[in-house]
C-alpha cells in the first residue's frame, strides 16, 4: 500500500512524530504501541494511527481533559492559537502536540482509557485507489 498524496503523507508524518513524542514523554512503562491501519472503502479509505501506553493517573486525567476540550472546540485552529498564546510565557513542555495534530494536520483526535492504559487515535479519510 502506498499513500501517493504528499499532503496526506506530510500530515500523517506530523501526527506520528507528535504521538511518538507523547508516548515517550508520558508513558510509564516500556510497553508501548504504535499502530498504523488502513480501512479500505470503495470511494474513501480511513487512515488511522493509534498509540497505546500506560501512564500515571494524573496524566490519564490530563490527556482525557485535553482531548475532550479539543474535540469540543468549534474552531480547532482558534483553540490551538489560544493554547499557544497561553503557554508561550511558560518554560518546559509544550503541551501543543495533540492540538497541532488537530489544527495543523487536520486529523480527528480521540482517546480511550482502560485501567491505566490510554489509547490515542488520530485518523483521516483519503480517496481510495482506483
Amino acid at each position, binding site marked *: 500500500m502506498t499513500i501517493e498524496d504528499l499532503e496526506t503523507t506530510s500530515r500523517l*508524518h506530523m501526527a506520528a*512524530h507528535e504521538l511518538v513524542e507523547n508516548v515517550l514523554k508520558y508513558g510509564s512503562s516500556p510497553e508501548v504501541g504504535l499502530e498504523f491501519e488502513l480501512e479500505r472503502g470503495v470511494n474513501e479509505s480511513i487512515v488511522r494511527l493509534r498509540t497505546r501506553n500506560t501512564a500515571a493517573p494524573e496524566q490519564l486525567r490530563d490527556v482525557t481533559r485535553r482531548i475532550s476540550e479539543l474535540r469540543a472546540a468549534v474552531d480547532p485552529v482558534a483553540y490551538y492559537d489560544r493554547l499557544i498564546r497561553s503557554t*508561550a*510565557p511558560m518554560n518546559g513542555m509544550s503541551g501543543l502536540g495533540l492540538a*497541532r495534530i488537530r489544527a495543523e494536520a487536520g486529523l480527528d483526535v480521540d482517546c480511550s482509557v482502560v485501567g491505566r492504559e490510554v489509547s490515542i487515535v488520530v485518523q483521516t479519510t483519503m480517496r481510495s485507489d482506483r
Partner: protein
Amino acid sequence: MTVAIKLPMIEEEGLVLGPVEGVRGRVRFAGTGEAEGARVLDRFLGLLHDEALSQELREVTIELAELEFINSSCLKAMVAWIYKVDTEGRPYTIRLVRDAAMHWQRTSLATLQRLAPEVVVIQDR
C-alpha cells in the same frame, strides 16, 4: 569573509543552527528538530535574541528551507522567542524564509505569524 552576527554554529540532536556567513542578522536552520533538539534550539534562540539586541538589529532572518521538520517541542521554543520579542517592545522583526512545498512549514509558520503578526514576516524562498 566576516560573520556579522556572532553566534556559534551548533550541530546537535539532528539540528543544524548557525549564522549565514557575512550576512548581518541572517541564520540558517537545517535538519530535523525532535524533542531532544528543543533544548538546543531554545538556547540558540536566546543567544540570537541577545545578539540582535546588542547589535540593534531591526530584522532577523531565519532560513528554514532546509529544515525538514520540527515537532511541537521545538515549535514551542520558537513560540517562546517570538512571544518575548512581541511583548518586549518589538525591537526587531523576524523574517521566516520557508519552502512552501513542505506542508508543515506552511501550517506551522502561519501559526507563528498569527501569534505575533506585527513581528513575524513569512517569505517564500
